[in-house]
């Protein structure tokens, strides 16, 4: 009797379970989104607004947003992909996505853009996302560099805002000084990161090289380092660093802080410098102007992508997230919240212009850099970019440490770059 009762109860339970399963709608998904920009003022707020919009449109789904520090980002993403557990929404720096794409880990977004009708014509920096005949990512920022200076320091030395390399060098020399008389320079004409990541080291050198007319490769991807223009560019870099016109051995973060606090007179940097300036001790003395180098440094910054191996249902949701981020509405709010130039040509930046006094400068720099085809990642060296940038950093350091002739250094860089290709 007892056994029969138990059998009946079990059958009922199984039946009820099957019935409820059949009636249940699609399971709620939690999309994993890893980013280094989570707590960044401005751009972090913008990402939060995109997530909020996604969750508003899809209340049954959630986005789990995790911050990973930039210094550990490549390691973390490599480990996640290698372990077969990539984030659903892939956020990568534009100098690191190529290896992931080359391994076939990123979805070809061409069918998705075609299906949704996302028009990428005129999308700044988007060309960099074309890999092996596929569109593997969407560029989220292509910036042009701005020139920031300490008005009080320049005025006290009777220096006008520089408009070219010669004026810049003269100003930097005049503004580097010992202000408290202890024999140790404590004010610097300019500031560059000379210690740390090779990618940033290249970005620091880039303005001098571009202004001298140099480039690492041409449009066809052929190495073009051993040229008189590159020799001139390297000579300029050597002059600035060897003459201690910049503090030595500091990270870009330290340099930005010193500039914001009034220890450095001039700095060429991306749009993000403004938010750091606003928090500095010398914020009232800091002004922005057009970069005294032509063309200005510009570059792709970060991309959104989709892993190729997640299931179709998740891919639909990830594309929905990308669609929100790339919509005209959110590209317009990007300009205002992140105080940066959005890549979309359809973004309405009037609100940003009304609120951010220097926004026109940002747009002008971005357009000038884009027109000149400037990017941090040389064509033809995308895959070995980390190795290439490390090599350039070491050779440039060797030039300064061992006081080598820039012509000799350019020749060696050229040979090594060709070997890497």
């Amino acid at each position, binding site marked *: 009797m007892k056994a029969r009762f138990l059998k009946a109860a079990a059958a009922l339970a199984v039946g009820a379970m099957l019935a409820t399963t059949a009636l249940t709608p699609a399971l709620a998904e939690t999309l994993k989104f890893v980013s280094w920009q989570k707590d960044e003022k401005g751009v972090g707020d913008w990402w939060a607004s995109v997530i909020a919009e996604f969750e508003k449109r899809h209340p049954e789904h959630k986005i789990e947003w995790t911050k990973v520090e930039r210094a550990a980002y490549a390691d973390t993403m490599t480990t996640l992909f290698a372990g077969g557990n990539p984030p659903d929404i892939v956020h990568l720096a534009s100098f690191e996505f190529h290896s992931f794409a080359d391994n076939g880990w990123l979805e070809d977004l061409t069918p998705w853009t075609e299906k949704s009708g996302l028009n990428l014509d005129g999308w700044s920096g988007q060309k960099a996302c074309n890999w092996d005949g596929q569109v593997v990512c969407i560029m989220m920022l292509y910036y042009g560099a701005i020139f920031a200076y300490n008005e009080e320091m320049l005025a006290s030395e009777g220096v006008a805002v520089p408009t070219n390399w010669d004026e810049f060098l003269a100003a930097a020399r005049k503004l580097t000084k010992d202000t408290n008389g202890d024999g140790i320079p404590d004010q610097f004409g300019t500031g560059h990161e000379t*210690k740390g990541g090779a990618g940033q080291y290249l970005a620091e050198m880039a303005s001098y090289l571009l202004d001298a007319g140099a480039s690492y490769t041409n449009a066809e991807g052929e190495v073009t380092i051993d040229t008189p223009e590159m020799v001139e560019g390297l000579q300029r870099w050597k002059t600035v660093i060897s003459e201690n016109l910049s503090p030595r051995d500091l990270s870009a973060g330290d340099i930005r802080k010193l500039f914001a606090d009034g220890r450095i007179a001039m700095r060429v940097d991306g749009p993000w410098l403004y938010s750091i300036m606003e928090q500095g001790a010398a914020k009232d003395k800091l002004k922005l102007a057009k970069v005294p180098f032509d063309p200005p440094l510009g570059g792709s910054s970060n991309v959104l992508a989709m892993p190729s191996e997640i299931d179709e249902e998740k891919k639909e949701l990830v594309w929905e997230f990308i669609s929100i981020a790339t919509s005209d509405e959110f590209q317009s709010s990007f300009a205002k919240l992140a105080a940066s130039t959005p890549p979309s040509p359809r973004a309405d930046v009037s609100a940003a212009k009304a609120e951010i006094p220097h926004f026109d400068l940002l747009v002008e720099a971005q357009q000038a850099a884009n027109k000149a085809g400037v990017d941090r990642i040389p064509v033809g060296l995308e895959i070995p970019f*980390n190795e290439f940038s490390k090599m350039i*950093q070491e050779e440039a*350091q060797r030039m300064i440490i061992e006081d080598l002739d820039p012509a000799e250094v350019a020749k060696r860089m050229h040979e090594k770059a060709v070997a890497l290709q």
Partner: protein
Amino acid sequence: MRKRKLIDLARPSRQHWLGYILLAPAVILVAAIIAYPLLISIDISFQDVKLPRMGAARKPFTLENYQDLFSSPEFWHTCWVTLKLVVVVTTACLAVGLATALLVNNRFRGRRIARLAVALPWAVPEVIATVIFAWIFDSSFGLMGWLFIKLGLANQMVAWFSDTTAAFWVVATTMVWKGYPFVSIMCLAGLQSIPEDFYNAAKVDGASALQRLRWITIPSLMPVLGVTMVLVVLWVFRDFSIIKVLTDGGPLKATQTLSIMTYNEAFGFFKFGYASAVGVITLLLCVIASMAMLGRGSKAMY
């Protein structure tokens, strides 16, 4: 008939089984954590793998990674830097650690505070200690540069991290500061286990303080020193954070050790096969060094 137990731990011949059974879960877990990645790493080192993938089909066997490694001047330079750092840091840690242990082993007022001060660097997290040293040796605003100028040792700020020799010594100094308290604590424990009778007998025989150190303290401490030396050598071999934060192996690879090279090749240049080969060679070197030193240390005691 009485049924026999499958495993009768009460039997005298089986009593030691209990120990093995209790240890088994931990041993299996540790083996899984250590042995599995190790085997994977060795396996990858024999394949041409750029970015690995768990569960992906195995690539053909190749010795290319090892051939490239042994023909690479960078690898031999890195080995030389690692060896220099191991010798310098281990020697300095042992000297400073032993000296401070001997000091705080004496009875004097404030001994507890002195012992605390000696052990303090050990308690400071490695990354925090490294950041502090990075600022002390900052090339533009650092205390050390200012001190050098005030003492007349330099006429301008020293670019510590832009000079290959200076950068090496900054890394070595930081490692010694962080590593000597461990030697000190180990030696202090060893010193307290030396019977006082040895010293009393030596004093009766007229042995000087130096002779007591040479013939009683050092030989009695040799087992402790041997093990400590192995642990310090292994720590220098595998330490990553101090070099990563201070110099990232630069300038011009002057501070690039095998562990930094492994990391850079794997996560910097996405060459996991090659990086695994560097890791395997590092492991072999550590095993050889440990075996050599442990044998020597254990023979040296009375």
